[in-house]
């Protein structure tokens, strides 16, 4: 729905039902009852993945809540919107269950109420409203007796009442929030109730798409109803803060009316000159000085927010904020304004209407990319853009498992065939009546055709619509249809005719088997971070560094409880299967791909009962999120909820990624409720608690931020560096040009860092000194020398190789290619050393040179993304800078004097990465610099993989 076309409001809000947002698993027809117990794979990119349908704030304007068709409710702290403080997941199914249409937040911020396509699997066919405790995220009440889906909500000023507007059987209901009983209801409404509001006196105003506006006295008494004066579809009603005026916007008319709140007579209409489409959102500033509105109208490709002065009676001025339809506006104290949009963007405007921040989902915008989407004949390489209209295309290759720039053009990639002799498809682009050779291809009511791709043999074609992907034969007979996870904006049939590759509104590109429409492979790429993950129907995946945090399993806990969610990274050992993903397009069948992958890697894949392996859920009950602390000893009260029979083996508490407390079970199991007393660092810190089951599966971290208000730490850290670089391998075929110099140049940066560190200790092992025994010995030193106050860096440059099972080995100087797996230094050894370091630890790895010695000159012999993801997982949280992604090669050049990666690292540490010009280079600055610099040096052929624990940043060098 992001395409900024005028959409009838009935289709936008109430017909949410027709949208299947972000479901990763194919639509399965009729609603399943009861709720699925099997885990459901979902995208989780840190923000809403579909249109934001609800936006609410507490009275203080500190806590915000957003709801979305993406089946999540998110809570945000206005002071730190970098990530939601909590993602609340209602029960869902594979279909529409769980799509949320609206949200309300109690004035004290303790309760979030939401509903939508919720509870349809319930006992009596009725719909449900959910009440969540914002502190824990738990569902504290389900009101399962709604006669229709709920479209609008409004709390009273004292939080004791909640007004709700319904569709299906339109009604206005007033709840007592103490016991959630119905205080009063009005079932005499004629049509859907898209908007409702309550003033300080408890009066309720409600809009009906039947063309009426109703005003109720407190307690929902003494209804007065009028025909809406400015249009037939009033979409939004809002009381002014003083309760004297009601602003009304319409979906079918550009009018904005101001009604007297005592008798609903028309006082005035706001200045909407020059606007030809309706205002579907309105909001008053808390002072009442300004009225804001937005809707479908555009100005130069932007969707402005209009602000009227003088309580809506003054001049209107447009502010161009976004290029998508604004779906909600929420006034905040100090006259700032929060907004949400279609597509999932959430942002804040200051009182001058300047953008303070915006949080985007990060999905690629595939609109108007009919000519941009290109695919290789075998489907293994796909080209697309993150931006609408297709600027700056990028290329994803399953072979290298990396994104690279789309320039220069690759003649082996082909776009959609949209014309062919005897196959004249017209009106396929954004109409509801596409036709083949003059014959209309029937679609559902309001279903728009959006994309077309004719098969190379010209005997069939694929039509992508807002809701489905349809394959027709040349005679117009429907061969199959597949439900879409969002609008199918662009499609290509591969040259071998085996796949329809379709780019959807949820940011995924999916490979549909042409024979039957089954989705074999899906790819999600994050536009800002360029992280990506590609997965098969059962969840076998391959991912970039950080990419395995983009999808996970949603697990229902019944109709009355908040669902659980587990990143797929929790099950990396089971589902990380690059071998399977690589083979899926060649075999056209997941089962065959697994068989071949097993044969190649020596694994035996068994069917996985995920439910039996689910890790526990950890909750930190105190201190509260954002709590201020001035003493370093803090008691953390926790709950552990087990989801399987597996006992809890250990619990860890981490501060900014480093462990500060560990509890391991002895003869008696670990208590599922308890307190851990720990010392936190004397700074603002992110605390994470995780628990491990007996079979070694870790929970998702329970996290909170603590604000340090005491005196700062007084001890300067020491720095410990182990730099290993091998160019002169004993085996001539392994010789490299610059790996030894890379190690030397890296450590040289830190020779003069006495200002930043109490002392600097460096060990370098180059060439013939870097034998397996010496490296092991040095790793022992590296693991044990730093104290808890210190910083330790391990730099390794040379050859690395994976065995068939994907296990990594670093190749010491005296070891030849044939002995690399038996005599090399295993990843386990390296990880053990890194994890043992008491202080902060960083790992720099550049071992992704050509795999020629291992028979694959085109690629690296290692898949470094797996290492980066493993080290960055909650149980390790080791910051890692790797030279490249997946099986990309690392490049070096004599004129650079280094490999591209080390050149960028050294440049950055010497000051180029000091973006804030404050004399320090921090880990975040180095991350940003190295990512950009390496890509530029190598013309996009090499992309560093960097795993940096979220929110962790500290200085590495002091420049002056």
């Amino acid at each position: 729905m992001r395409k900024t076309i005028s959409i009838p409001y009935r289709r936008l809000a109430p017909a949410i039902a027709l949208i299947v947002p972000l479901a990763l698993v194919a639509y399965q027809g009729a609603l399943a009852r009861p709720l699925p117990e099997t885990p459901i794979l979902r995208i989780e990119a840190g923000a809403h993945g579909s249109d934001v349908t609800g936006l609410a704030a507490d009275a203080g304007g500190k806590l915000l809540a957003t709801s979305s068709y993406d089946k999540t409710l998110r809570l945000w702290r206005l002071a730190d919107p970098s990530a939601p403080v909590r993602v609340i997941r209602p029960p869902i199914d594979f279909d529409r269950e769980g799509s949320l249409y609206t949200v309300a937040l109690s004035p004290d911020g303790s309760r979030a109420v939401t509903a939508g396509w919720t509870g349809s699997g319930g006992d009596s066919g009725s719909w449900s409203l959910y009440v969540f405790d914002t502190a824990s995220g738990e569902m504290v009440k389900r009101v399962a007796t709604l006669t229709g889906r709920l479209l609008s909500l409004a709390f009273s000023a004292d939080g004791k009442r909640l007004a709700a507007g319904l569709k299906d059987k339109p009604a206005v209901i007033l709840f007592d929030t103490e016991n959630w009983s119905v205080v009063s209801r009005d079932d005499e409404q004629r049509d859907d109730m898209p908007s409702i509001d309550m003033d300080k006196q408890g009066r309720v105003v409600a809009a009906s798409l039947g063309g009426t506006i109703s005003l109720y006295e407190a307690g929902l008494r003494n209804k007065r109803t009028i025909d809406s004066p400015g249009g037939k579809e009033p979409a939004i009603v809002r009381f002014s803060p003083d309760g004297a005026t009601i602003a009304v916007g319409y979906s079918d008319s550009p009018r904005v009316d101001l009604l007297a709140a005592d008798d609903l007579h028309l006082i005035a209409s706001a200045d909407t000159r020059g606007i030809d489409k309706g205002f579907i959102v309105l909001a008053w500033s808390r002072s009442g000085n300004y009225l804001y509105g937005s809707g479908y109208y555009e100005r130069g490709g932007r969707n402005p927010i209009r602000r009227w002065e003088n309580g809506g009676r003054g001049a209107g001025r447009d502010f161009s904020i976004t290029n998508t339809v604004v779906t909600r506006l929420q006034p905040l104290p100090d006259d700032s304004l929060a907004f949400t949009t279609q597509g999932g963007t959430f942002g804040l405007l200051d009182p001058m209407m300047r953008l303070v921040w915006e949080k985007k989902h990060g999905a690629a915008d595939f609109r108007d990319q009919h000519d941009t989407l290109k695919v290789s004949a075998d489907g293994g390489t796909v080209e697309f853009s993150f931006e609408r209209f297709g600027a700056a295309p990028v290329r994803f290759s399953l072979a290298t498992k990396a994104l690279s720039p789309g320039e220069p053009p690759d003649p082996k990639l082909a776009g959609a065939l949209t014309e062919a002799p005897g196959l004249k498809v017209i009106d396929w682009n954004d109409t509801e009546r596409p036709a083949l050779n003059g014959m209309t291809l029937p679609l559902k009511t309001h279903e728009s055709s959006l994309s077309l791709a004719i098969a190379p043999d010209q005997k069939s074609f694929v039509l992508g619509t807002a809701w489905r992907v349809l394959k027709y034969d040349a005679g117009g007979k429907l061969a199959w249809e597949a439900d879409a996870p969002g609008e199918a904006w662009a499609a290509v049939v591969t040259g071998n005719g085996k796949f329809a590759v379709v780019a959807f509104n949820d940011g995924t590109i999916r490979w549909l088997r042409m024979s039957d429409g089954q989705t074999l492979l899906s790819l999600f790429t994050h536009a800002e971070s360029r992280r990506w993950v590609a997965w098969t129907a059962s969840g076998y995946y391959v991912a970039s560094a950080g990419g395995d945090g983009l999808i996970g399993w949603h697990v229902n806990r019944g109709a009355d409880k908040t669902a659980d969610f587990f990143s797929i990274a929790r099950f990396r050992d089971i589902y990380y299967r690059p071998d399977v993903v690589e083979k899926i397009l060649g075999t056209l069948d997941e089962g065959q791909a697994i068989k071949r992958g097993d044969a190649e890697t020596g694994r035996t894949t068994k069917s996985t009962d995920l439910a039996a392996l689910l890790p526990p859920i950890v909750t930190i009950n105190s201190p509260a999120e954002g709590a201020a602390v001035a003493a370093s000893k803090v008691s953390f009260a926790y709950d552990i909820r087990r989801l399987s029979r597996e006992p809890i083996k250990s619990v860890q508490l981490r501060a900014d990624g480093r462990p500060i407390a560990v509890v391991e079970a002895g003869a008696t199991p670990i208590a599922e409720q308890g307190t851990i007393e720990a010392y936190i660092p004397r700074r603002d810190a992110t605390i994470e608690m995780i628990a491990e089951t007996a079979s070694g599966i870790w929970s998702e971290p329970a996290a909170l931020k603590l604000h340090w208000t005491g005196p700062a730490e007084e001890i300067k850290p020491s720095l410990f560096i182990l730099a290993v670089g091998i160019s002169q391998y004993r085996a001539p075929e392994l010789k490299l040009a610059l790996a030894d110099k890379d190690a030397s140049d890296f450590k040289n940066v830190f020779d003069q860092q006495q200002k930043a560190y109490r002392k600097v200790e460096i060990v370098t092992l180059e060439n013939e000194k870097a034998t397996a025994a010496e490296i092991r010995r040095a790793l022992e030193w590296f693991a044990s020398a730093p104290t808890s106050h210190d910083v330790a860096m391990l730099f390794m440059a040379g050859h690395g190789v994976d065995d068939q099972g994907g296990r990594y080995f670093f190749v010491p100087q005296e070891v030849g290619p044939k002995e690399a797996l038996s005599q090399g230094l295993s990843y386990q050894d390296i990880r053990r050393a890194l994890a043992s370091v008491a202080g902060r630890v960083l790992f720099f790895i550049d071992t992704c040179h050509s795999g020629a010695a291992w028979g694959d000159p085109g690629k690296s012999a290692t898949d470094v993304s797996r290492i980066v993801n493993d080290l960055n997982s909650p149980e390790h949280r080791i910051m890692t800078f790797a030279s490249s992604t997946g099986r990309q090669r690392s490049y070096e050049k004599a004129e650079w004097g280094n490999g591209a990666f080390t050149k960028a690292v050294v440049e950055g540490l010497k000051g180029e990465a000091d973006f804030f010009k404050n004399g320090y280079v921090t880990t975040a600055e180095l991350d940003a610099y190295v990512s950009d610099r390496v890509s530029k040096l190598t013309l996009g052929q090499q992309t560093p993989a960097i795993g940096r624990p979220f929110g962790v940043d500290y200085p590495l060098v002091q420049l002056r």
Partner: protein
Amino acid sequence: MRRSTSFASLAVFVLGAAWCNSAAMPREGERQDVAIVEEVSPGIGDLRRFDLIAAGRSAELGQDGRIVLGYLKSCWQDSIAGGRAVVEPLKSLVEGGALTRRRVECDAAGLALMNSAGLVARGGNSVAGAALPEPDVNLYGLSPIIISAQAGLLVIERLDIAAPPLRFELGENRVDLREKDIALDANGLYRFSYGASVIVVRIDRLAEPGRAPAVGRLVIFR
């Protein structure tokens, strides 16, 4: 910097960024105390409270035995109940027992300095002098624990303000000032003199009263 010759030479090596295969690590056979016994149940071998112990030492705790070990380098405090505990350089290896490990506040670098065999830390001038010395170690408890090689006289002098000195006979070569109800001042700078050895101590601004973890309030005279 108040370092002995041996430590100073290590520091030069360190800053010079040279690698010597043996310099940074203890020599073979050299005893290196890595942990302090903070608490121990009666009858666990010959272990006593405030014993400094080397890596490799183990303790059989049986079913009900308990030991708390503070690690000098990692600042881990391991509370172990039951089973067998083996002292490793940075933490305990526990077999069959329950473990609660927490990172406590301690100045591991200062502890390493004091714990170095042959090191004699030398404190700075008193308050009458011009500049206050940098502390050798930061302590996170108001009541330090002093461990010495043998009995002798310990003098504690305040350096940053004028105050009467404290004097103790270390009859047992270990003393916990908490047991003598003595608490130093938070943020105070003190000189601990014992025979010819002097260590300058800063009591941390947030130092805890009473029974703070031992590794965080340890003063060692070798």
